[in-house]
C-alpha cells in the first residue's frame, strides 16, 4: 500500500487536533479501512489511531437509555445483556452482519463509517463517482444487482452496507460527535446522507469530527421487534434487503411503529409516512403491506435489482408480522 503517517491519539481532543489535516483518517478496528487501503481505493496520507481511547464502554444514560461507546466492539455490543434484553433488534442486526472474527475487531463508530460494497467502488480500473468524483457511475447501466432502489441519484446508486445502522435508525439513536467546533449530537436519521451530487460524501461529519458514542433512547421496542436480513447465502453476505421493525401494540392495535430498511439506499431508509400509516391501525398483514407500499412508493429499480422492490415489500410484511407475534425479548 501507499506510505502513510501514523500517530496514536492520546485523547479524543488530541485525535481531533491531529485529524484536522486533509487526507487524515481515524483508524480503530480497521476492518474496512485497511482493506480499502490495500485495494488502493482509499489513500489516506495519515492515520490517527484512536483504538486506545477510553470510548469502549456501554453505559446507562440519564434518560434511561444506553450509551454505546464508539470504540465498543460490535461483538461486545451484540452480546451485552442490556442490549440483548432492551434492544434485541440491535443485537440481532449486529449478529446478522460480517463474521464472528470481524465483529470481534470492528467498532461501533467504525461500523457507522464503513464504505459501500459497490463493485465499482472497489475496482479502481472502473468509473465510480464515490471513489473518484466526476468519473461516472459504473453501476448505472452496469452490474447493479446489489444496488439502491430508493434515494439514489444519477451520480450514484450505491447502498450503505451496515446492518447495525439499520437498527440504530429504527431506534432513533443519536450520534455523539466531538470536533474542531466542539461537541454536538446528530440524530441518526440525519447522520448519513443521500448521494445527490456529492456521492463521495457518506455522512454529515466534517473534517476532524470524531464519533465518540451512540446513544440509544429508552424506548427499545423489546417486546415487539425484529431484524430480518435477506441475502444470497445464509451468512457472510451483505443484505439484499434488511428490515428493522419495532412495534408498540395495544391489544391488536399499533400505537407506535418503527421501520428501517437496509440494502436499499445510500443510508438506512426510514419513512415517517410509512410508519404513520401503521399507527392506530390493526397489526395485520394487510396494514403492513399498505405501509410497505407507502415506503416503497418512489422505489426505482435498475436492470438487475428491480426484484428488490417486491422483495422489500414482502420483507417488511414479514418483519412486522414477526415483530407483532413476538412476545417478550428473546435472546438472539
Amino acid at each position: 500500500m501507499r506510505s502513510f503517517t501514523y500517530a496514536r491519539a492520546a485523547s479524543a481532543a488530541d485525535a481531533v487536533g491531529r485529524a484536522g489535516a486533509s487526507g487524515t483518517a481515524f483508524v480503530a478496528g480497521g476492518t474496512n479501512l485497511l482493506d480499502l487501503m490495500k485495494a488502493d481505493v482509499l489513500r489516506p496520507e495519515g492515520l490517527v489511531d484512536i483504538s486506545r481511547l477510553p470510548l469502549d464502554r456501554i453505559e446507562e444514560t440519564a434518560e434511561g437509555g444506553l450509551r454505546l461507546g464508539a470504540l465498543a466492539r460490535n461483538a461486545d455490543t451484540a452480546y451485552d445483556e442490556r442490549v440483548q434484553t432492551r434492544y434485541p433488534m440491535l443485537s440481532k442486526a449486529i449478529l446478522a452482519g460480517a463474521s464472528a472474527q470481524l465483529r470481534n475487531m470492528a467498532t461501533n463508530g467504525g461500523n457507522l463509517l464503513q464504505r459501500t460494497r459497490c463493485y465499482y467502488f472497489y475496482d479502481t480500473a472502473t468509473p465510480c463517482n464515490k471513489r473518484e468524483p466526476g468519473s461516472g457511475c459504473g453501476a448505472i447501466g452496469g452490474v447493479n444487482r446489489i444496488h439502491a432502489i430508493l434515494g439514489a441519484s444519477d451520480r450514484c446508486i450505491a447502498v450503505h452496507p451496515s446492518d447495525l445502522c439499520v437498527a440504530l435508525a429504527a431506534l432513533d439513536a443519536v450520534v455523539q460527535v466531538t470536533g474542531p467546533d466542539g461537541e454536538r449530537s446528530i440524530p441518526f436519521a440525519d447522520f448519513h446522507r443521500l448521494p445527490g451530487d456529492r456521492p463521495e460524501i457518506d455522512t454529515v461529519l466534517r473534517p476532524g469530527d470524531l464519533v465518540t458514542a451512540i446513544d440509544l433512547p429508552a424506548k427499545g421496542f423489546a417486546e415487539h421487534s425484529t431484524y430480518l436480513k435477506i441475502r444470497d447465502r445464509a451468512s457472510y453476505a451483505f443484505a439484499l434487503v434488511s428490515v428493522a421493525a419495532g412495534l408498540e401494540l395495544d391489544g391488536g392495535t399499533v400505537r407506535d411503529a418503527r421501520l428501517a430498511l437496509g440494502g436499499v439506499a445510500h443510508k438506512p431508509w426510514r419513512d415517517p409516512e410509512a410508519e404513520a400509516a401503521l399507527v392506530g391501525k390493526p397489526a395485520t398483514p394487510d396494514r403492513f403491506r399498505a405501509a410497505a407500499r407507502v415506503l416503497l412508493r418512489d422505489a426505482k429499480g435498475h436492470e438487475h435489482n428491480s426484484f428488490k422492490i417486491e422483495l422489500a415489500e414482502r420483507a417488511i410484511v414479514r418483519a412486522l408480522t414477526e415483530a407483532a407475534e413476538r412476545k417478550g425479548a428473546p435472546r438472539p
Partner: protein
Amino acid sequence: MIAIPSIPGFLTAPNGPIGKPVSRVDGRKKVTGNAHYAAEFTLPDLAHGYIVSSAITRGRITRIDTAAALALPGVIHVFTHENRPSLAWFDRKWKDDDAPKGAPFRPLYDAEIHHALQPVALVIAESFELARYAARLVHIEYEAAPHQTDLRANRANSFTPGKDKGGFQPPPKPRGNPEQAFLESPVQVDAEFTQAAEYHNPMEMHATTVLHHDDGTLTVHDKTQGAQNCHTYVCNVFGLAKSAVRVMSPFVGGAFGSGLRPQHQLFMAMLAATQLKRSIRVELSRPQMFSFGHRPETIQRVALGADRDGTLRALIHEAVQESSRNENYVEIVVNWSGQQYKCDNVRLDYKLTRLDVHTPLDQRAPGAATGVPALEIAMDELACKLGMDPLELRLKNYAETDPNTGNPFSSKELRGCFQQGAERFGWAKRSPAPRSMRDGRELIGWGMAAGVWDAMQGQAAAKAVLGVDGKLVVSSATADIGTGTYTVMTQIAADVLGLPIDDVTFCLGDSSLPTAPIEGGSWTVSTVGSAVKAVCDRVRSQLVTLARKLDDSPLTGVAEEDVLFADGHLIVRDDRSRRLSITDAMRGSGTLSIEEEARALPYLLARARHTFATHSAVFVEVRVDEDLGTIRVSRVVSAIAAGRIINPKTARSQIQGAVVWGIGMGLEEEAFTDHRLGRVMNHDYAEYHVPVNADVPEIDVLFVDEHDDMVNALGAKGVGEIGIVGVPAAIANAIHHATGVRVRDFPITLDKVLAGLR
C-alpha cells in the same frame, strides 16, 4: 524400466489397508502448519513480484512509464513487453498437457490486450508491500478496441469445434430421426438452460516461489496440479536445460482444475528469477484469480419427447459455450445425454463462441457439471408432464449398455444408487404434487437427479525403494490437491506389500520423480494407483525370489501367487505358520534395498470395447420461504457407484466437498460481467459467493458396491468429479417440487424464485 500390466490375481492381505477409512497421512503436517505451500518457501535474498493487470479488455498498450515505480527505493525492476528477454517463438513451446487447440496466451509478449485483467507488467521489489505499491505507480496508456464478452449476444457466431483438446470427444452423430420423433411424441419438453461463468477460487491463491541457487539451478515451488507439466513449460519457454530446473508442488491448497495449466504467475516468477538471477516470489491477489481460466458460461437447449408410458422417443441436446479468441477450450457437455438414457432418436450438438475472454479451464467435472443438470432438469419436467415419479422415469429409460457406442459398461451400478439413495432419503414418502409439503412458512421440496462421469486412466510410472529396515518409499510426480493422493497411494503400497501404513512414505509433487500426468479428471487413483500397485508388485516378486533362495526358506517350493503379504511378513497362504519377515528375507540374502520402477498402462483392449464411467444419484430436500423466496438446502443424500473405494474416509470427503460445490453451482456462484467493460465485477470472496457453513446441511454419502475387473488392477474408478454432477439439477428439481417454480438458469438466486411466486 519396462511396461508391465498389473496383475490383479495377486493376493492382498485380507485385512489390508485398502478399503479402510485411513486418516490422512499428511493430516498432522497440515494441521500443525508444517505443510508448506508455494508462497511459503523462502531464501534470504528473496525478492517479491506484483503483477499489474490490464485496465482494458481489448486493444493495445501505447505507452508504459515505469519511472515513478522505479524511483522508489527498494524497487528492483519492472518487466514489461518492452523490455522482456527473447522468449520461445513457436506456439508448441508454450503448449502444456492441458492446452486446447490454438495459440497459448503469452504473458508480456507484446502490446496487445486480449482480455480483462491481462497481466501487463511485473514489478519486482524488496518487499511484497512495496511491489504492490509500485505496481500502482506504473503508468500505462492504452488504445482500447471494441470487445465482445456477451455469449448470448454473440451466439449466432458460434462454430462446431473438432477434437480440440485431449480427452474431448465431439458429440456422436445423430441416431434415428430425432426431430420427427420429437414432433410425434405425445409428451414433450423443450427448454433452454443457462449456466453462469464460475471461477475456481481455491482458498490458496496461485503463487510461485523460484529459489535461485548459487550454481544457477532453480527450484520452483508452484501451485500446480502437474509439476512435470510446469517443468516442461518453463524449460520450453525460457530455453532452459531440464536438469537446471526442478518444479515442486508437495502441497496444494485446493485447485479444482485451476492448476491444470501453467498459470502466468509461474511465467512471471521465472522471468524475473532468470533475468535478475535472484529468488523471486509472485503471488496473485484474489481479484487476479479472476484473470485466468473459468468454467465457461453455457446456453443449452434440451428437447425430450416421450410416450405416455414414459418411454423416451426423442432426445435433443444442444449447447453453446464461450471460448477465447486464441484457443478452442472444449469440454464434454452434451455427450452424456446420449449415454445416460436409452433412446433411439438422439441429436447432440456442441458449439463454441469466441469472445474476448481468457481461455476457460477445466473446473470440477468440466462439461458434465454443466450439461448433465440441463438433461436432469428436463427429465424432471418430463416426469411432471407424465405424472410419473422422476425416479421411475429414469428407471424406465435406464441404459444397460452405452447407447452412444453400443458397448457394454465395464460396470454400472446406477440402479443401485437409485435404489439405495432413495431408501436412505425416504423418497417413497414423497408427495408428488408441487407445493404439497410445508413446514410453517417454508415450502418443502424433494428433488433428485442422476450423475455420470468418465472413469479415465492415463499412463504413469512409480518408483519404490524398500529398505532393509522394512520401510518403503514410493514416489511418482503426481499431485495431492487436498484430495487424499498421499493417503490413498500409501494405502495401496502398504496393502500390496503387507506393511503398516506408518512404514510407507509416498512422495509426489516433484518434477524429478517418475512420470505422472496432470492430476485431474478423477483419474489419479486409477492412473497413479495402478503404477504404485505395479511397482509394489515387482518389489513383491523380488522379495519372494529372495526369500525362496534362503537356506531353510519357509517359502521353498511355494508359487508366488500362493504367498500372502501381511504384517511385514511373507506368509504361505495355506499354511500360515510358514512365514518370514520382509526384513529377514532381505537381511538373509544380503540385500540392503530393493529398488524398482514400473509404468502402468490402461487396459487398452478392454477400453476399446467398453464404456467406463462412475455414476451417482443425488436426493435433495430444500426449504423455500413461501413469501421471500429464500432457499435452504436442508438434506442431501448422494449415492455413488465408483468401483472399489480405496479409502471411504477421503472418498466421503471428496463427495461432500463436491456436494458443497454443487450447492454453490445450484444457488450461488456467478461471475457478473459488465459487458460494457468486458470485466468481471464481483472479483472477490465478499461478492463472488460460494457456500458458507451455514448453507451446508448434513451430507449423507453412500458408496454402492460396484465390482469392476476391467477398469484397472485396483478395480477403482476415482471420485473427484462425480459428487458434483447431479447436485445442481437435484436442487432445481427440489425447488420446483417445493414451489411449483421452474428455474432453468443457474445459479437459482432468490429473485428467480420470487418472480414465480408472485
